[in-house]
């Protein structure tokens, strides 16, 4: 869809306001009714609105943080004196693993993601992000799964292998219990929920901005969240794949990591840190984005170096993927590659330096007021700069050989994460709380919280630099007397208690002063410049403002009043359903009005059962997992059937300013198409990790062992047969598209049902081919890698089958026609991807060994 020609005029800063006064009297009540939260028993389970889901999400992340803090206090108590026996070694090992895992996966990433879900719609003046039920689903799956994971601690079943779960320690032989499975299955699927959130955020930021909010006018927090979400899309697949491999090894004895059968334990380390290092920036960037919003408001001036900071965010995202090996300096990697990774690690500190100096410049050009958020910003600068400097130190290979895996690293990572993420988050909490609760948190308590945490954190973690360098390794449940460690550990423990007091006071402040008020803030207490401080309801701003600068609330003085009166775009609802305005990705020109779903039970039930499915798998209750899985898939299908692809409910929507937009769009302009493409990027990255697995294990084994003696390469006729079937399937999909264009939707459904068996047959033929060639997954890493491909392709066979049957059913039910075709488009994109991936998989299995001349 090309935007209407009038858009250019309607977006000019001197154009008349899009909608005249007075507004029809029923316009606002209607909008409020449609966006009303569910009441009674249905709340909050069926709620999908970002204001509520965002706050619930943040609250849940906060709960997990507090639980993990309690675990850290247990550890500090244990380490207060040498030879302590408060915790035994097994409990301690479970506690530190759970602490790290929860902080990284259940607190840090979800908390910043939640901040995005909560803030972004208001900041971009979208009514909501495009897939609110997906956000709600991701939230509930995370909340239920996370609680289930934490509970394992009470049964002594919590994982005990450290949060990066290195095999062979976590392999079946050395960790026979289900503790490790709690990590793999319990955390693994929460990573999927982080990806769901990232899809929502990427598409939302690029397609749901206020008209006129070009990329160059976008708030820096949105820039940070965009980079954050893109990084999740490329980083999380690596850890998901590493998790899949380890679980396959544990459950089915496929020796990816066991050297006696051709596996390599370093494979996991590469995959894990390819995720794990970007992870640090995934956590830090949104926090930095928040600081870039808070500082200008606190000092009442525009951000200095906006362009440099936006560039720095993007550069950090790129560079952070090039330094995973700096977690592996001691693994015996050749010194040339160490030098490269050392340089790359240095390079990534430059964009961070840019941001620090941009904040300093902004502070210098304004009039700083010591509001509580500003105190936390100063605390952030102090702690984070120190942590950044020790980060440069550990990027240096010889120094890192000493510091690695000692308390120096414990100190460094807590400085970076507490400084770089927790303090900005607290600054954000004190800054944005009024936007959710209507009034500010206590200034007096806030100052106490700040000083207790600032002193507590520094005095807890600074001594750890010293205890590490004088000989204390990390992850030790106790340490001997007489090594000079006593005084530093006692100081750390005492100071941890001070920090705990700060956390307690924060909870008191929240309990006393934070009440969700759906009416939104009455005013803009810090006189900030960005759109989240417009008068808000559940529907965000009453009308979608037309933006002409980066600081609209400062440059358009009457904006708040105009928006409240409904004088900007889309002041009510056109279709009588929840809607959000979709704009173009760069220029933010209005393109169409997307209908978005409201409260429902299906996504909630699906989330509950998804969590139930993975938790039952963990405790090996397969029948229960079967029930949960079936219900979850059914609920998702019901949700899709009833809530998506509604078609053009009305012909055109007049949003004011002469803009008449469609309410249904298919193809590359639709948000749905964008989301599918983003999802395929995730999928493709997992497949790239699969390819890396093959290449890495081949290099580790050498040509002669790839394949090893006893395993052959199947006859060339097999892959050729599979390829022919895949090509036939692609041809039928082309035919299906042609039939749909001709309006023959039912015939299209029939062709789809013909194409499906061809695809499944192609996959089945390849499975048969590798099996008859004597390749077995348990005998050697070659077989395991080959079958990892079979596993991944089979999973796609299952997904394509579900989608194809769903598509055919929609077609036969008359819900698809040449206009209403998003379901068809999405299934076809996914399917074509699956075909290409299957062909690439054939190359891995059949071409690579032949190319090596060993087949």
């Amino acid at each position, binding site marked *: 869809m090309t935007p209407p020609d009038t858009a250019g005029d309607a977006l000019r800063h001197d154009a008349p306001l899009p909608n005249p006064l007075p507004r029809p009297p029923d316009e606002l009540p209607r909008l409020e009714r449609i966006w009303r939260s569910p009441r009674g028993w249905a709340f909050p389970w069926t709620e999908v609105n970002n204001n509520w889901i965002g706050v619930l999400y943040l609250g849940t992340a906060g709960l997990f943080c507090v639980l993990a803090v309690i675990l850290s206090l247990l550890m500090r108590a244990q380490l207060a004196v040498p030879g302590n026996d408060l915790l*035994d*070694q*097994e409990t301690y090992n479970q506690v530190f693993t759970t602490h790290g895992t929860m902080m990284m996966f259940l607190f840090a990433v979800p908390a910043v993601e939640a901040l995005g879900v909560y803030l972004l719609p208001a900041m971009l003046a979208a009514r909501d992000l495009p897939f609110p039920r997906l956000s709600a689903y991701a939230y509930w799956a995370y909340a239920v799964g996370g609680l289930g994971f934490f509970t394992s601690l009470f049964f002594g079943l919590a994982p005990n292998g450290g949060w990066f779960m*290195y095999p*062979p*320690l976590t392999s079946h032989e*050395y960790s026979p219990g289900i503790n490790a499975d709690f990590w793999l299955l319990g955390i693994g699927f929460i990573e999927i929920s982080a990806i769901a959130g990232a899809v929502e955020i990427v598409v939302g930021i690029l397609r749901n901005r206020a008209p006129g909010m070009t990329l160059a006018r976008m708030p820096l927090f949105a820039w940070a969240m965009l980079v954050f979400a893109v990084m999740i899309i490329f980083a999380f697949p690596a850890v998901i794949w590493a998790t899949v491999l380890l679980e396959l090894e544990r459950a089915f004895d496929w020796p990816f990591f066991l*050297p*006696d059968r051709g596996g390599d*334990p*370093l494979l996991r380390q590469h995959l894990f840190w390819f995720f794990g290092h970007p992870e640090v920036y995934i956590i830090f960037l949104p926090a930095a984005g928040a600081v870039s919003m808070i500082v200008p408001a606190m000092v009442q001036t525009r951000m*200095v*170096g906006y362009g*440099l900071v936006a560039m*720095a965010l993007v550069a950090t995202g790129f560079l952070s993927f090039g330094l995973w090996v700096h977690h592996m300096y*001691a*693994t*015996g990697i050749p*010194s040339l590659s160490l*030098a490269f990774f*050392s340089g790359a690690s*240095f390079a990534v*500190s*430059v964009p961070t*330096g*840019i941001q*620090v*100096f*941009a904040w*300093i*410049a902004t*502070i*210098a*050009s*304004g009039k700083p007021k010591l509001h509580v958020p500003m105190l936390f910003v100063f605390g952030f*600068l102090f702690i984070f*700069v*120190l942590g950044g*400097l020790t980060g*440069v130190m550990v990027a*240096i*290979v*010889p*120094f*890192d*050989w*000493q*510091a690695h*895996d*000692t308390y120096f690293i414990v100190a460094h990572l807590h400085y970076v994460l507490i400084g770089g993420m927790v303090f900005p988050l607290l600054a954000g909490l004190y800054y944005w709380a009024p936007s959710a609760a209507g009034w500010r948190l206590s200034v007096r308590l806030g100052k106490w919280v700040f000083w207790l945490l600032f002193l507590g954190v520094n005095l807890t973690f600074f001594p750890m630099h010293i205890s590490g*360098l*004088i*000989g204390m*390794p*990390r*992850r030790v*449940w*106790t340490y*001997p007397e007489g*090594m000079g460690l006593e005084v530093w550990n006692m100081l750390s423990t005492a100071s941890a208690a001070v920090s705990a007091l700060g956390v307690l006071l924060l909870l008191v402040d929240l309990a006393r002063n934070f009440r969700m008020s759906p009416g939104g803030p009455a005013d803009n207490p810090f006189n900030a410049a960005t759109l989240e401080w417009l008068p808000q309801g559940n529907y965000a701003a009453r009308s979608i403002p037309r933006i002409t600068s980066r600081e609209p609330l400062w440059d358009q003085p009457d904006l708040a009043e105009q928006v409240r009166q409904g004088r900007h775009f889309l002041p009510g609802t056109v279709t009588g359903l929840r809607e959000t305005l979709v704009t173009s990705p760069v220029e933010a020109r209005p393109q169409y009005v997307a209908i978005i779903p409201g409260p429902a039970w299906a996504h909630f039930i699906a989330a509950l059962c998804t969590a139930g499915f993975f938790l039952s798998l963990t405790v090996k209750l397969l029948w229960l997992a079967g029930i949960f899985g079936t219900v979850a898939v059914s609920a998702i299908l019901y949700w899709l059937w009833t809530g998506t692809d509604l078609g053009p409910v009305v012909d055109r929507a007049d949003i004011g300013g002469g803009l008449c937009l469609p309410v249904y769009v298919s193809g590359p302009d639709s948000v749905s198409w964008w989301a599918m493409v983003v999802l395929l990027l995730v999928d493709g990255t997992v497949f790239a990790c699969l390819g890396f697995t093959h290449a890495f294990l081949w290099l580790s084994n050498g040509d002669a062992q790839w394949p090893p003696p006893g395993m052959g390469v199947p006859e060339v006729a097999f892959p050729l047969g599979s390829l022919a079937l895949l090509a036939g399937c692609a041809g039928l999909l082309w035919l299906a598209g042609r039939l749909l264009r001709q309006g023959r939707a039912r015939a299209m459904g029939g062709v789809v049902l013909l194409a499906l068996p061809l695809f499944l047959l192609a996959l089945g033929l390849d499975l048969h081919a590798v099996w008859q060639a004597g390749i077995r997954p348990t005998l050697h890493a070659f077989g395991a890698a080959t079958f990892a491909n079979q596993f991944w392709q089979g999973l796609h066979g299952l997904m394509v089958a579900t989608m194809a049957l769903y598509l055919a059913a929609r077609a036969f039910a008359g819900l698809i026609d040449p206009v209403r075709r998003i379901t068809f488009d999405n299934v076809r994109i996914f399917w074509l991807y699956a075909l290409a991936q299957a062909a690439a998989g054939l190359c891995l299995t059949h071409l690579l060994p032949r190319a090596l001349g060993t087949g």
Partner: protein
Amino acid sequence: MNLQSAMHPAGPDGERIAALSWLLFGGGGAIFVLVMVLVLVAVVGGRWERRLLGSRRAIVVGGIAFPVVVLTALLLHTLGLARAIGLPLAGGEPPLRIEVVGHQFWWEMRYPGTLPDGGIVTANEIRIPTGRDVMLEVTSADVIHSLWIPALHGKIDMIPGLVNHRRIRADEPGVLRGQCTEFCGAQHAMMAFYVMAQTPEDFAAWLDQQRLPAAEPDRPILALGRQVFGAAGCGGCHAVRGTEWNARIGPDLTHVGSRLSLGAGVLENHRGTLAGWIAGSQDLKPGNRMPSFAAALDGQELRAVAAWLESLK
């Protein structure tokens, strides 16, 4: 004097890294103070300073130019240093090879070529001659461990299926401590060892002593101890060279009486601690692979076997 400290080096590489560390602490500290002062100036500084600091140029200078210059210099310096650390130290003499194998939760040290049919095998301590390069060839028999002797050098991972190298040298005779630094399971915290640097003469004498098979018992209590050792099944896991026992699951005990510690740095080594360890190793180091023998042996047997092991100097 701390025996396990990167800041108290006892060899040339340890000294280089410690010097680098002080450089980093000094430089890092100076930059930290500078940035904090700039923050302070940004808040309370005069009109002129704040205008200077509040410009886009200040970001380019402070956030790009300064780090690029400093970090480039630092990178060149450290790459040179890393190269120096990789070069052989002593002229002429080839380094002494010692193989170190990590086990849950102890260390096996082998000196290849010291016996006609292989080499002596010891546990939980590395004896090295002073003034000579020693090449540690490390690997693991089970999970990943990491070998760290901070006074001599940084750590090197011990990975099953892979042999890694770390070259060390001690300047003066003395005892140092090392520890496992890659989390390896229940008793990762109690997986330590000692490094004993000796003059080349003392080292040669120790090596000669270690080459001998275990001494035959010359007193009744020692003979009883040897008998108990067999009856209790100790030989199912341990080797004692010169006897019928040659299992490789636990530490080689041929000269266990000459070692500095028991249980990988957990206890001092004498008859009393030997008896205590055998009786209650699961109380002293819960989760380690050796069962407690308190129920299997009576007091007399325990004393005898401890006495015999102590006599294996």
